[in-house]
């Protein structure tokens, strides 16, 4: 019997998810022995034509990492969807939009203006912008279209499972692949990590007091952090209570607070709203200006509460982007 065929692909991603596969170390040998790797552009030389040539549904599973921002990524996601029995959103960007998703606060034009003109390291006297097509020496060059917003993989194609994390841990990857190989699969649509928030497995859990009030919020780079005490007890914003566990609390173990890459639990629609609710309700002030003064300790609410999940949140993107889009469609 043929070994199951497996593919890996990346969209708007930093490459960390690809590294995560390499991080499987010796386990990777066991896996490659059990499957046929038929598509992995970052490691092996495959082309789109190779995928087109495969019969529909011929791959057992494809792991796609990265958010979706360009027309090419949409095309590849759709293509791989057709060729594969299971599509697994691999990592925070594919699942929730991830760090690239923070771009959803800004319009496409303002992003391009900054990247091609505004950034201090850029010299672009002719104010050149990338265009989808250009003619040069009788040749036509094309680029994929840069979409108006960042999307999660599920907003483009149907996704069977989600493997969370920035990046997913080797342990979660191995158990996901084992589940696929053995057919012991959870219900479709599941996130392949525990549905309990991170505090459950955080080594600092015991040090969190029952009565907690925030008189000030401190930022990690501006404070010296105790290496054993709960971050929230130190006034440092830690997304752990609002974030799905399963990461083995790697960040707290390295004396950094959780930033939320595993996304919300299944009971929550909007990770940021929930963390905002919990933290601000416990602010130790009553008067408007005092409350504002404490909350000012969180200078960037979107970047803090939605660091990985803005495109998957209830509002998805800034209403200003929406206004532009509405105008265009009129």
């Amino acid at each position, binding site marked *: 019997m043929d070994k199951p065929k497996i593919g890996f692909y990346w969209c708007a991603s930093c490459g960390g998810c690809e590294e995560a596969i390499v991080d499987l170390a010796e386990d990777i040998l066991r896996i490659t022995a059990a499957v046929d790797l038929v598509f992995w552009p970052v490691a092996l030389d495959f082309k789109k034509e190779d995928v087109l040539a495969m019969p529909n549904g011929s791959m057992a599973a494809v792991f796609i990492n990265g958010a979706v921002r360009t027309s090419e990524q949409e095309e590849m996601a759709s293509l791989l969807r057709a060729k594969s029995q299971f599509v697994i959103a691999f990592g925070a960007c594919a699942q929730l939009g991830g760090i690239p998703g923070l771009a959803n606060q800004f319009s496409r034009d303002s992003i391009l203006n900054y990247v091609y003109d505004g950034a201090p390291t850029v010299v672009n006297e002719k104010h050149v912008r990338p265009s989808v097509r250009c003619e040069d020496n009788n040749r036509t060059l094309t680029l994929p279209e840069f979409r108006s917003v960042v999307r999660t993989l599920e907003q483009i194609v149907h996704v069977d499972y989600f493997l969370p994390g920035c990046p997913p841990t080797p342990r979660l990857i191995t158990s996901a692949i084992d589940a696929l190989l053995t057919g012991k699969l959870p219900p479709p649509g599941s996130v392949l990590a525990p*549905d*309990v*928030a*991170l*505090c*459950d497995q955080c080594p600092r*859990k015991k040090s*969190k*007091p*029952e*009565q*907690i*009030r925030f008189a000030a919020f401190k930022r990690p780079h501006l404070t010296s952090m105790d290496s054993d005490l709960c971050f929230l007890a130190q006034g440092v914003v830690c997304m*752990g*209570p*609002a974030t*799905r*566990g399963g990461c083995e609390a790697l960040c707290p173990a390295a004396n950094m607070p959780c930033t939320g890459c595993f996304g*919300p*639990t299944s*009971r*929550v*629609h909007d990770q940021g709203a*929930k*963390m905002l*609710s*919990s933290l601000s*309700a*416990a602010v130790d002030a009553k008067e408007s200006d005092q409350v504002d003064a404490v909350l000012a300790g969180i200078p960037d609410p979107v970047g803090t509460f939605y660091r990985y999940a803005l495109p998957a949140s209830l509002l998805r993107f800034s209403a200003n982007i929406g206004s532009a889009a509405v105008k265009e469609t009129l």
Partner: protein
Amino acid sequence: MSNDESIRTGFYVCHCGHNISDVVDCTAVARYASTLAGVMVSRDYKYMCSSPGQELIRQDILEHKLNRVVVASCSPLLHEHTFRNAVAAGGLNPFLFQMVNIREHDAWVHADRAAATAKAQALVSAAIRRVALHKPLQATRAPIHPDVLVVGGGIAGIHAALTLANAGKKVYLVERQPSIGGHMAQFDKTFPTLDCAACILTPKMSAVRSHKNIVLWTYSEVAKVDGYVGNYTVTVRRKARYVDENLCVGCQECIDACVFKVPKFPDPFNLGMSMQKPIYIPFPQAVPQAAVIDPDRCIQLKTGKCKKTCVEACADRKAINLNQKEQLLEIKVGSIITATGFKLFDAKRLPEYGYGRYPDVMTTIELERLVSSSGPTGGELRLRSGKPPTAVGFILCVGSRDMRTNRWCSRTCCMHSMKLAQIVRERTGAQVTVFYIDIRAPGKGYEEFYDRSLQQGVQFVRGRVAEVSDCALSPDEAGKLVIRVEDTLAGFVRRVPLDLVVLAVGMEPQADAQEMRRILNMSCSAEGWFLEKHPKMAPVSTFTDGVFIAGCCQGPKDIPDSIAQAGAAAAEALALIDAGGIDQEPNTAYIRGEECSGCKSCISLCPYAAISFDAEKQKAVINPALCKGCGTCVASCPSGSIGQNLFEDQEVFEEINGVLDYV
């Protein structure tokens, strides 16, 4: 739970006579509801809350095997219980029900039929989506502590306390002043029968003192109330009286012996028209009949350098204890009756009437003391000059029915003034004129009392008095107080010279009514009167279960009405106690143990300390007996692991979606 196949909802929209159907197209609402998911029956009916209306629900549940019910009618605060009972009568769990408010929130506030109907439909859609997620719930029954606290020892508080005590219940009666009796104790006679106020009040005051079921705490205030219906913990502050009221026999020897040979401090009971010493008994019939020492005036308490002749005079009885300290006592009660009364309007706020500037302008309560046989003049009515008055005028509605001060009618001043007018006529033969806007005499025997006033020669001039001054424009005005008033029946401006002007001051909420309201978690009307749960159907109940109101703290009223309310409040408290328990809305929050990460974020947010941390399981737990169902913890749980019965996240999300359904 929300598997659509199994949901069978019955929907009912009420016309409420014409109250709803005049503005909302009820048939259109019923037609719309019939198109919504899960709706098996959709009806409109004239009066859903009537017996046939409730029967309709019961029948449909049986006939159509309904497992959810939605009624669109009035406010759930009014009839939710009615319909839950109807649902239960059909054999269904009463919480598989949702109510839609299309009367108070729709038909009564909108005029545009199309817009009001669309709004009703959206609200109905919300309820039908929401009810599909409802779970069967069990109301918990809280036991009722049988003891009752009555706050305020005026006639209302006294009557409520005696009624309860006579029924065998233990009552704590807490009064702020050193004696019970309230305003009524200051009155000479009572209308319309003109029987002596003291003769009907003092026996009740003594009965309070001697009743074995009443704990009387005067000179005391309610400092704090915790808990909930059936189970209140009340902290009472007992101010230092410096006299042990159980040892004091009221012999007054200490008062006679006080180093102040003559009384020199204004006596509040007589409104400063007589004087008292630093040690005093508030008034002759005071209960308890025990002296009290004013720490701001007693030399010993102020400076520690007094001969303490009072202590000497008390001798072996040892009732005087100058080291007494304020005490905070904690009691447990199941229900509370608030009868904290009113305060009189300060006539100085209307300077045009000259109160405080002209000695012979006084208020009705001051006149009351002057004509009282126990008053500062022994009942003899004299002007400040010592002469008897020959012409007396009463100005009604001082601080009532007035846009500048208080808009409300104080209800008692017409009758009170006529009573005093008759007494003045009788005692002095003076000419008496009553200046009024309307004479309001709506009680039993009251109109007859007005007739009697007329027969006794009391003059009535209809018109709002412009001013009282002492400037004379003619010789017959010289040395008199002159009232200028537009006589609206005769149609000209009158100048009426008088030698005594009596201001019928109205009633206002107590100065600290807001504080009391907060302590007891009640609501107040915009004017500051304690708010009854329903003006007609629940006149002595409040929005806080187990807290009742009686007397003038709810609004101005006379003695018969205050006593009637006090009796009603006592009966409500008795009904609660004798029922043995009360069903509580099962809207408590709960933690889904397997989902909780033990982050403890919720624990400090709970106002009732109902959430604790289970150190063994490393999860938070909510004690349902302590949870009051506010839902703050639910809104805060960062991992969505706290649910709230009747207000689950998903139920609210469905409601949000529903209200945004635009047909």
